Each structure stands twice: as structure tokens, then as C-alpha cells.
């Protein structure tokens, strides 16, 4: 809702387009059906523009700009598929994939990596270079934090903080290669401010944050995403009316997510909605 906004005219990949003022270049690209990769962007979070896979070239700009957070301007000339853009996006994926396990990233991430001919081995032999390899943190029955899959996109921090939960249980700690997501003073998750809403897991793009049930099933070799059916229903607890997506495998609920485009909570849930489904199995 709100006031109608004036249109801004700009050029994207040689085509003149008009989009409402206040949109980002990424929004404009999507309206024009120009597919653009993202990692740290999500429709229900404020852009933090840290991952740089969405960069585009803007005429007159010395550096490539993150399309997820740069607003459109009149007369802007944008290239989304120039040599410079392709090289940069490829390089970002290669740097990430050389030090981080990307195997559980969304399928779209793998499609883009293939599209750009990403070869992480160009950065060196995996056994010799620095990586973030470490054992997963399993501290309770609900969450697993598997930080060898963390690309530091900050989505979890945003979802825990101002963008959804306002709990501020996690933040980045350390600098440079040692930067990592941590609870306050690195205490165990159950001892932190965490309220186990699972909204951080909901936004994680690489499987670094994972539900314990899924983690255990993967470890057992029983996780079979292709056979899972997803049904949208309404949470059984309280009167807010959050929608739940029940991921069902062999007539059992194995995971609960929430549709990000639903107006009630934009994909976010609380501990009961996210984890309180186990009474359906007993």
C-alpha cells in the first residue's frame, strides 16, 4: 500500500526500462526477468550487501555495485552480464567454495556456479589452503550449527536481530579469516539469549544452520528431499495465524518452514510453530 511512486527510467543490458522510484537495481532486474544470483539477500531481510554475487556494472561507477541494495536512479546505465560482472561473480563463488563446504547450498547456488564455470580448485589444493572446516556444534535437540558451511552472509544475524526476532543472540566475532558467527561470549546456545525461533535456520542459504531432525536424518542417510511433499497449513499454537509449510517424508513431518511471502509473519515463526510439531508423530 502507500502513495503511487514516480517512475524512474534507466537502461539495463541495453533496454530502456521504467520502474517505480525506490526500487533496487535487483528489483528492477527481476521485474525485467533478468535472473540475478544472490546469497546474502532475502525478501524478508534488509540488504546487508556483503556477499557480492549480485554485483552489476553501472556506467560511470569506478567499482561494481551490489544490485541488492543500490537504488535505481534516472538515466542509470546498468550491465548485468558484462565480462567484468561475470569474472567478479565467478571469483566470489570460487573464493567462497574454496574455503567453505557449499554442498548443501540451495540448488540455485549450484546452478549459478555451473553457469559461471566456477572452479574453486583454482584457489589451491583444498588440503593445503585455509578453510573453515570444523566439527558441527550439536548442543540441543533442535539446532545444529555446522559452521564449515558458513559463508558469513549475516542473514542469521539479521533474522535474530532487527529484521525479525529482536533477540540479538548472535553476532559476528573475530576479524579477517577468523570472523565467525558467535553467541555472546561464545557460550553454548542453550545458555545464550537464543529463544529457539529457528528464524536463523529459515534464512540460511548454505545449510550451515540446520534443524537437528534434518541433520540426524542426513547423517543416517534417510533424508530424501526429492520424496518430500510440502503442504501449507496454519500453526496449531496461539492466535497469530502463522502459516506453516510441513515437509513430509513417508507420512512423517521432517521439517517445518514458513512461506516468506505470507503477510502474517513473512516467513518467521516462534519455537512452538517451528518445533512444536512433534506431537503429530507420537
Amino acid at each position, binding site marked *: 500500500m502507500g502513495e503511487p511512486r514516480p517512475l524512474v527510467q534507466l537502461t539495463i543490458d541495453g533496454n530502456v526500462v521504467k520502474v517505480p522510484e525506490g526500487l533496487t537495481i535487483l528489483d528492477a532486474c527481476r521485474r525485467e526477468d533478468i535472473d540475478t544470483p544472490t546469497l546474502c539477500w532475502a525478501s524478508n531481510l534488509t540488504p546487508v550487501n556483503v556477499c557480492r554475487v549480485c554485483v552489476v556494472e553501472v556506467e560511470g561507477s569506478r567499482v561494481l555495485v551490489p544490485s541488492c541494495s543500490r537504488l535505481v536512479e534516472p538515466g542509470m546505465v546498468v550491465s548485468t552480464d558484462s565480462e567484468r560482472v561475470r569474472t567478479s561473480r565467478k571469483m566470489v563463488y570460487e573464493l567462497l567454495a574454496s574455503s567453505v563446504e557449499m554442498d548443501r547450498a540451495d540448488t540455485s547456488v549450484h546452478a549459478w556456479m555451473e553457469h559461471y564455470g566456477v572452479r574453486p580448485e583454482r584457489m589451491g589444493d583444498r588440503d593445503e589452503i585455509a578453510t573453515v572446516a570444523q566439527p558441527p556444534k550439536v548442543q540441543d535437540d533442535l539446532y545444529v550449527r555446522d559452521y564449515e558451511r558458513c559463508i558469513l552472509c549475516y542473514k542469521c544475524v539479521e533474522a535474530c536481530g532487527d529484521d525479525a526476532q529482536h533477540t540479538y543472540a548472535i553476532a559476528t566475532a573475530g576479524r579477517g579469516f577468523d570472523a565467525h558467527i558467535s553467541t555472546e561470549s561464545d557460550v553454548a546456545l542453550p545458555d545464550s539469549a537464543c529463544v529457539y525461533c529457528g528464524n536463523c535456520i529459515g534464512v540460511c542459504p548454505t545449510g550451515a544452520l540446520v534443524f537437528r531432525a534434518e541433520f540426524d536424518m542426513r547423517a543416517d542417510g534417510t533424508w530424501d528431499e526429492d520424496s518430500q511433499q510440502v503442504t*501449507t497449513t496454519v500453526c496449531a*499454537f496461539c492466535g497469530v495465524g502463522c502459516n506453516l509449510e510441513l515437509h513430509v517424508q513417508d507420512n512423517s513431518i521432517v521439517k517445518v518452514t514458513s512461506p516468506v511471502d505470507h503477510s502474517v509473519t513473512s516467513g518467521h515463526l516462534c519455537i512452538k510453530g517451528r518445533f512444536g510439531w512433534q506431537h503429530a508423530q507420537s
Partner: protein
Amino acid sequence: MWVVDPRRTTSARFADMWLGLNVGTDIALANGVAREIIHADLVNVEFVENATVGYEDFASHVEPWTLDRTAEVTGVPAEAIRDLARGYAGAATAQLMWTLGITEHHTAVDNVLALCNLALLTGHVGRWGSGLVPLRGQNNVQGGGDMGALPNKLPGFQDVADDDVRARFEGEWGTTIPPEPGWHLTQMFEAMGRGDLRAVWVIGENPADSEADVNHAREMLGRLDHLVVQDVFMTRTAEMADVVLPAALGWAESDGTVTSSERRVQRTRAAVRPPGEARQEIDVIADVAERMGSAWGRPTAEELWDELRSVSPMHGGMSWQRLEDVGGIQWPCPDEGHPGTPFLHGRLWERPIGGRRAPFSCVDDHPPVDQLTDEFPLRLTTGRVLDSYNTGVQSGKFNSPIRSGDALELSADDAGSLGLARGDRVMVSSRRGSIEMTVAVDPDLPVGLAFTTFHFPESADVNQLTSDAWDTRSGTSEFKAAAIRVEKLDVAAGA
């Protein structure tokens, strides 16, 4: 955000200001706030003149509630009351949100009316961003009422005493509907006590754990000639039943609708097959109807919904397909071209006003029925915590890392004067019962106030303590205000 609550809850920690009032002084606070709004010249005169009735009487009624007197009764500092009054009245838009802290008192209806007075004084009702918001505690408590699960209403809040309304339903249903209201839950238990109610069919409720003064409730249920329980779990109530009808889960094993706190009707969908002999509740009810001589067939959820739409004008425009397409519609929605209604009472802003004027209510403060005495010197208030839900039937099934709530929380001063520390076992007694509990200390609790949840009836059967004094208009018991005594147990002797 301002939070008014005897306890410094998580919400209170988020708030700009927390007003920690004494339990059961909500009307005093509201009257004090009203007087301050009037004296600060912050009344919305245009709204009061055009949309309300009874202002003069109300203004005289609250006149004795000076800031000082209100502060003395409520325990809230006068400056905080003044700031709340001015902040609320001066805001461009403001909402009053409440839940069981207002309604689980013997003055429940008056508590709500006292809040309505504030909205009427300031015009914070019937406009986008302003309003009176009773937050529903369950996913379909709104829908249950909407469907007519109230003793005096037919579906769509239509009055059972209205001859025209009844005639329409009788035509649709081919039966005769008694014009007298039925009993609400509290009256049903009274009727059980008199022997007037001999057989009960409980669907999806666990009164043997959830009722106030639960020992009495269990005794009443035990006296019945016949008890049928239809539920998803073998609850304590189901264990008392003569017949248990295992049911499919509403939210994961059944198609249907629920209606949220904001009157939004949304579709639930079956995602898994119910286990064992559990059956769809519609089928169970239809089968019972058939045994009673009425062939209802086996209607689908959509067919039942369409029947509702035909008799409840406020649901008329919500076709199954629209609910599917738009992901939820807020009633009233009278026809298929209607977008639904985000907020109510907009008629109060029509000039001239649409319909009748909204009345101010002169309501008075009455302390909790269960009085504090030397024998029962502490006030116990019960409530919920984040990761649990009511009697724990559903929420007890997952291992929450942040689970808490079965302890008796005491203020540091009260724990100290009773010689108690965290983890000590105590006997907690009220005028209705005694249970053993474990002590926890909440440094944010005011002196004289104790708190616990009722999520864990197997380890802490808290409703043996709660007061079944109830509001004769709403039927709700005074769960929020019991008087208790706490005595330390000698662990060595008890072991």
C-alpha cells in the same frame, strides 16, 4: 510500547515503560488514566460528541481517581500513570492490546469495558492503526466463537434469542432451535454439581487439567453418568472417560479453516495421514448424528464451509477458492467482491455516525475474591511461557532447550523471609488445595507476588490452587489471583 503487568515479563523488558501494577487493580488504573486524560484536556472532543454516549456521567465517575489515589491503589508511581495517559491520548494512533491478564479475573468484563472507555475518550478505535485488540491465545478460539460455539449465539454471532435469526437457521437445518441460551463451561460444571448435567461430550479440551480449582472439576466429571472424550491424545480428561473417540489433528491431518486473532480465516490442510484408529472429526460427528437418527452423510470440509457461508452473512463472501487464492480473509466479508475488513468499528467515524453511539461504562474496582490473609499471605498469579502451551498436551512432546515453568517463582525478598533458595521443595496451599513444588527466585517479581505456569500438571498440578471465582457475564475464572501459603518441606523427612 508500554506494558502494564504485575510481572516484568519479556514484553516488559522490550517496552519503553513498564507499569507493574498490583494484581486485580486494572480498573483503578484505567479510571486513573481516564481522569488524567480529561484533566490534561486530551479528550477527543469531536469523537466523544459525535460517536459516544454517557461522557458526563463517566467523567464524574472517574473524578475521584486522582493520580495519587490511583498510585496508592495500583502501586504504580503517579508520574508513570500520568505519562501513560498523556502518551496514549497524544499519540496519532494507538492500540490497547490485552489477553488473559485482563480477562481471567472475576471482574473480566468490567476490566475490558474500562479499556474501552479509554479508546472512546481518545478516539483510538475504528481507524487504521488504532484499536482495541484482545489477543487470542489459541489458533481457533476466535473461529470457535464465530462458528457458534457460544451458549447464546448461532454461527456468525447471530443471537439465539432473535426469532427471525432462529427461523432462518431452522429453515436451513430442518429442526427446531430452543430460544434460550445454553450453558457456558463454568455453568456446565455447576449443572454437573446440581445433577442437571449427566452426560458430557468433550471435544479437544482437557478440563481435568485446565479448570480452576481442578479438584472440584475432577469430582464433577467423575460424577457424570457418561463422559465421552474426543481428542488427539489420552489426556487426563480422556482417562476419566467412558468412551474415547480418537481424532485426527486439526492442523496437520485435516482440511478445514481456522480464524486468527485478527479475524482472518485461513485454510488448514491435511499433510499426514492420522495414525491408527484416529478419524476425521467431521466423520465422527456425522456418525454420531446418524446413530441419533439424522443422516448427514459425509460432508467435506468445503461443503460444511459453504453451508456456513449460507447462514452467516459475515462469512458470505469467503469462498473456498478465494481463501485458497488470497491466503486468508478477515471478516466481515459479505460478498465475493468484498476484500475483507482489516479493522472494525469504522462506523464510529462516519458523520453522522453509522448506527448507535458507543456507550461509556462507569465501572468500579473490586479486589480479587480470594483475599490475602495471615493464613494465605501471598498472591499467586498463573501464566504461560514461550515454549509451552496450556496443559502441555501438545507442547510437552518436543525437547525444548529453554523449558521452564514448573517451579514456583518467588521474589527475592519473599524467598529470603521464608528461608528458601532456588531448588528447595515447598508445600504450596490455597483455600482449595495443596501441592508440592520446587522454588525458583525471580529477582524481578515484586514482594508478595508468586508466579507459576500450569503447563506441567503431572509435576505441578497448579490448578488445584487456582480460584474458581468467576465473572458471571463471561464465565471466566479468576486464574490470575489466588491467595497462597508457602511452607518449606524438610527434604530429609520427605525422602
